[in-house]
């Protein structure tokens, strides 16, 4: 019982210094956790994707659409059980600052493709029966205070004009990572209107989504689909939903790498602060360490005392930092709204935070412990703090 008590008393001898250091570690560990969570949120789309789905798009880029007639041909490819399609709408709701994803999608076939979007039977029926109907995710509906039955005007940027939809349902996500900040409406409504205004742009789909009979066949089926349309006017590129989502992540890779790098910088900063605290502490206590040695305690014991104190302070800060990460992440998620669809602190992040606190504790104690262990009894007893 003697040693832990000694370490505890030592740690809080300079109450102000220890408190300040602990606060610093809390801030750093919480910031580290928040930054990692921001990076994770980018990958949320890819992590929530199903291995049983493929996405087909134009091989040139997403800007080019594919003929709607491809749906029939894709359905005939062995291994594909169903096909749905969607178009990116890219409209503006009231002001350009309100960004959220909007898709024109193929009604029932699309909803069946995504069982993770939970919609009550009544709402599903109402949506499918109404050509100008739309559904929105729970998070999105809450952000703008939409209720079922509301009229929602969206100004098109790709498809000119102002489009007004009637909200027929609000869907929930089956899992925590499911994106519930997207707005869906009927492809047919978009297509009929475009057919009247710009006949050349009608009957085109942005992406086709296929359900696989067996996820193992993903590679073979995607190759079969692309071969079907090779050397046609609109060649395709088919990949798993995960690869498709990761393609978007890769576009912002430079920024993600920067955020990751910065998340380690904060740990280095706090390491400097912590090392400073431990260096001062040890410097003040050289005579005490010499006394221990004079009493017969080993060099290792003295080093251990410093390590234990440093680790104790770092862990206290680390655990409180982890606890503070959750409210911080919540506040951050609220302030950015629907830009990052899923925002959850993962278990890996928590493990990394605790790991970082341990590393900070050990490294900060290294030099002072080395010095204290090496000090000669005579010099130590002579030293004045």
């Amino acid at each position, binding site marked *: 019982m003697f040693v832990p008590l000694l370490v505890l008393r030592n740690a809080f001898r300079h109450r102000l210094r220890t408190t*300040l250091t602990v606060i*610093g570690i809390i801030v750093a560990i919480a910031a580290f956790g928040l930054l990692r969570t921001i990076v994770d949120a980018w990958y949320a789309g890819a992590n929530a994707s199903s291995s049983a789905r493929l996405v087909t798009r134009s091989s040139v880029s997403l800007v080019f659409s594919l003929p709607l007639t491809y749906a029939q041909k894709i359905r005939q490819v062995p291994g594909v059980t169903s096909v749905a399609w969607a178009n990116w709408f890219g409209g503006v709701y009231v002001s350009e600052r309100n960004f959220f994803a909007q898709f024109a999608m193929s009604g029932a076939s699309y909803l069946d493709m995504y069982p993770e979007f939970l919609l009550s039977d009544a709402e599903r029926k109402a949506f499918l029966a109404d050509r100008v109907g739309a559904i929105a995710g729970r998070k999105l509906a809450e952000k703008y205070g939409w209720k079922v039955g509301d009229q929602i005007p969206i100004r098109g*940027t790709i498809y000119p004009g102002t489009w007004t939809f009637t909200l027929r349902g609000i869907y929930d996500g089956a899992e925590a990572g499911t994106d519930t900040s997207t707005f869906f409406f009927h492809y047919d409504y978009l297509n009929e209107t475009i057919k009247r205004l710009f006949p050349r742009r009608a009957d085109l789909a942005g992406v086709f989504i296929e359900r696989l009979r067996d996820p193992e066949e993903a590679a073979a089926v995607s190759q079969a689909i692309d071969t079907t349309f090779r*050397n046609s006017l609109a060649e395709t590129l088919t990949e798993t939903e995960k690869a498709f989502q990761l393609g978007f992540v*890769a576009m912002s890779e430079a920024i993600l790498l920067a955020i990751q790098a*910065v998340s380690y910088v904060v740990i280095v900063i706090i390491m*400097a*602060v912590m090392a400073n605290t431990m260096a001062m502490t040890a410097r003040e206590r050289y005579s005490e360490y010499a006394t221990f040695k004079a009493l017969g305690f080993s060099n290792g014991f003295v080093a251990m005392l410093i390590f234990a104190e440093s680790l104790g302070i770092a862990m206290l800060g680390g655990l409180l930092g982890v606890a503070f990460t959750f409210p911080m992440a919540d506040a951050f998620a609220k302030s950015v709204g629907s830009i990052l669809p899923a925002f959850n602190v993962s278990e890996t992040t928590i493990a990394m935070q605790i790991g970082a606190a341990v590393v900070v504790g050990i490294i900060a104690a290294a030099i002072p412990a080395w010095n204290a262990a090496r000090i000669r009894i005579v010099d130590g007893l002579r030293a004045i703090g």
Partner: protein
Amino acid sequence: MAVPFSYIARNMVARRLTTALTAGGMALVVYVFATVLMLAAGLEKTLVATGQDDNVVVIRRSSQTEVQSGIDRLQAGIVESLPEIAVGADGTRLVSKEPVVLINLPKRKTGKPANVVIRGVTPAGMALRPQVKLVEGRMFAPGTAEVIAGRSIADGFQGAGLGETLRFASRDWTVVGVFDAGRTGFDSEIWGDAEQMLQAFRRTGFSSIIFKLVDADQFEAVKTALESDPRLTVEAKREKRFYAEQSEALSKFISYLGTGISIIFSIGAVIGAAITMYASVASRTGEIGTLRALGFSRGAILVAFLGEALLLGLLGGVIGLIGASAMQALSISTTNFQTFAEIAFSFTLTPRIIVVSLIFALGMGFVGGFLPAARAARMKIVDALRAA
């Protein structure tokens, strides 16, 4: 009377390890703070420099970007016949009708695909952008499957270097030249013959029309004329403003995120400074008593310790800025959310960033040093001398 500066400075040298650790922590914070501001400044500079003052961009109303826009030949003809359009040295009118699309290209380093802008240009289009100069190879021959690539694209993407071929729109395109657009957004584009591009991508309309005004002041009149013409559904913007708007979201994102991060980080550094200064005060209690006994006022003691903290901040700030200025050699390439296309830009250190970063560093020193300095100033002479 003030405490001599040399006394303040020498105190920092006396506790080398502590000074280095504290200033090092602050230097890292300033480094992050300055690099982020440099990144946002670099992006803004790149896109603002892309536009010319007397050029006008015409796109379809509310389409926001060239890629989303579409202008059919009839409407293009009406825009093209505006009397305010300038005439070039060779007698042709300086107006360029351009198709702009995105294609997916794999990056050289990672093999991961990104969207690259392909622009169809005309000879007038080259004259409209005097900052664009061929640095390698030659110009594409009109009517052929030849393209020229911007410097960043040629360096960064597979198949986009001089002499290499790109496959898109069911054709192989040979890169016959590399151009340098003077660190503007055009460095991140690939250019080819406008009519060839229209055919290859099976487009019947253009994406945007760019023209030069005879007189830059005529912009408002031209804008009103175009936007009130019932035959047209277009909007006109000064080229400079058009490109500046496209950098807004990304540069705001970078500077908000960066400033937020820096402020959180600075809490750590301020605490480091406070710990150091408290220790500095505690270990010199006797000295403080002596100084007060010699006749230095409480104010002078406060100033001396605050000065030490500010010096610590300044040291951190200068080291951080030196580190940040080394970043100017790097350039970064990422997707602009607004245009959905790749854009390359570099870290740009402006005088404003230097001043703001130094103020930030001094601020950290001041906040961290104030309470310890106040404690030193409040000490009673007798107590301080007895403590020693």
